[in-house]
């Protein structure tokens, strides 16, 4: 038995998320007194994979088939199943991002494994195996017992830190044995966001609501985000109006995020909005209405006009960074 960590790559690169997952897998394996390995699908260079030793991964299985780039859900699940069998994995860990959400349920059926998504932290107990996750979109937490011998966990993004181990990593060539016909997803075009901090990865998020009044006013938010190295987000009406792209919508029906710092500008703090952001470590709210529910959820607040506060924030951050 062992713990297997699935490490995604982005055009051959690993992100902080991968190192978080590596740290998590290594800690989990230590707790269970099991060996840990990782699997990488797609072309990633050896030096990059070897950096995983720093976070406690002694061996990486690497299948460099480029067809994985089509992100075909069933092919990736099949490859992970082969890797899980080869490593005799009893627990597979992956990210709770778009790919992890797509692939983990398929793998769970193949492995006859109990699946819990968006797990927070290490198991509360290992016998029985109980993990904690957010439910009712941020309104509560549940303790879930996974009763099956095989288990799959997807780790909530940005909830587990990095733990350094400084091991040497062995790379093992791995061939999941997939044929061209296993890849059934035809990609017509891709547009990857480059040069911008992605909402799911961001440690700081600058978000705007209807109080920002118009799409044109986002320049101020973008400037603040830019100098903070933050991602931008918005409330649902803002994306419904087309002021901002759908991918920025956070909340019950948008993305659920957990940055270290969340700025809410002109957002009332409706319960559906808070569901998506309440796991943020620190929330800062700026709203001209002292009764706005966002102040109930915030750690720091300013009752005031976003258009007066934003320029002061921008100046103060510039000073801080100088």
């Amino acid at each position, binding site marked *: 038995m062992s713990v297997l960590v699935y490490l995604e790559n982005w055009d051959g690169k690993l992100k902080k998320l991968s190192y978080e997952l590596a740290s998590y897998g290594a800690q989990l394996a230590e707790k269970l007194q099991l060996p840990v390995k990782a699997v990488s699908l797609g072309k990633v260079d050896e030096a990059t994979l070897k950096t995983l030793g720093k976070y406690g991964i002694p061996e990486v299985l690497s299948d460099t088939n480029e067809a994985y780039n089509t992100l075909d859900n069933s092919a990736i699940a099949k490859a992970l199943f082969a890797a899980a069998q080869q490593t005799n994995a009893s627990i597979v860990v992956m990210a709770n991002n778009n790919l992890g959400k*797509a692939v983990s349920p398929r793998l769970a059926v193949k492995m006859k*494994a109990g699946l819990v998504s968006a797990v927070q932290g290490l198991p509360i107990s290992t016998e029985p195996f109980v993990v904690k996750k957010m439910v009712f979109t941020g309104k509560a937490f549940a303790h879930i017992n996974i009763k*099956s011998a095989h288990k799959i966990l997807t780790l909530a993004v940005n909830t587990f830190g990095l733990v350094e181990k400084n091991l040497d990593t062995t790379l093992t060539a791995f061939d999941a044995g997939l044929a061209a016909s296993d890849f059934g997803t035809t990609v017509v075009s891709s547009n990857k966001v480059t040069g911008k901090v992605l909402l799911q990865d961001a440690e700081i998020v600058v978000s705007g609501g209807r109080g920002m009044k118009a799409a044109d006013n986002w320049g101020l938010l973008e400037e603040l985000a830019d100098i903070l190295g933050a991602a931008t987000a918005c409330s649902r009406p803002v994306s419904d109006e087309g002021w901002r792209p759908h991918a920025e919508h956070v909340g019950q029906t948008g993305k659920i995020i957990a940055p270290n710092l969340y700025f809410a500008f002109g957002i009332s703090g409706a319960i559906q909005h808070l569901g998506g952001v309440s796991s943020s470590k620190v929330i800062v709210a700026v709203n001209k209405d002292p009764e706005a529910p966002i102040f109930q959820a915030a750690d720091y607040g300013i009752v005031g006009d976003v258009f007066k506060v934003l320029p002061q924030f921008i100046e103060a951050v510039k000073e801080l960074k100088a």
Partner: protein
Amino acid sequence: MKILVLIGNVPDTTTKIKFNADNTAIDASGVQWIINPWDELALTRAIELKEAHGAAIEKIVVANVGRSETEATLRKALAVGADEAIRIDADPLDALYVATQLAAVAADYDLILAGIENADYNGTAVGGMLAELLNRKSVSAVSGIDLEGDLLKISREIDGGAQQLSMSLPLLAVVQKGIAKEPRIPAMRGIMMARKKPLNVIAAADAEALTAFEYFELPPAKAACKMVEEDQAASLIRILHEEAKVL
């Protein structure tokens, strides 16, 4: 082509969640139940496709795994425009259990639409599991879907961008935000018609749940929000740097 839309029955999004005395289950008293918001958008899109492509879409069927209380939610889906409903009579124990029940009725449908997650336990699993049980292709995080001859034109979000795909049927699409703009609201005529549409109740198949809820807890209460004056906004940046240490 036939479309199946999976329907989760979840507490209204404004519900204040409470649990029973030993915190082992939700206290359902006073809870209003609705169609899971993503499933509502999926159904809306299915209806739009039927309106746009007419004869190419033979019927839209909605399915739920649940007890008789969920029929009001299924009737609403019929009122919005689904042609038939199926209720599989079982408690939705966990994702694999639900997917196994759905697999018994879903194989006939060329296109199956599931939501990305149910707004109750946020499992994010039933759609993908059903695809695997049926051994069919799936695409997840779908934010747009259209018919183009025999093919489906699909937009999906990936981690770090978006893609356009061209997919053949049969397919299971796990949908999210963007798939339809606004959910359809049932009109009076739809509500009248829904009463006459078939709602078939099917007995549960044998299936196993691999996970179980043990305990629920509410998030810890937040400390009071620290307020800063509007004209002192710059000092808040210093506080975030020095006190909260998040900058």
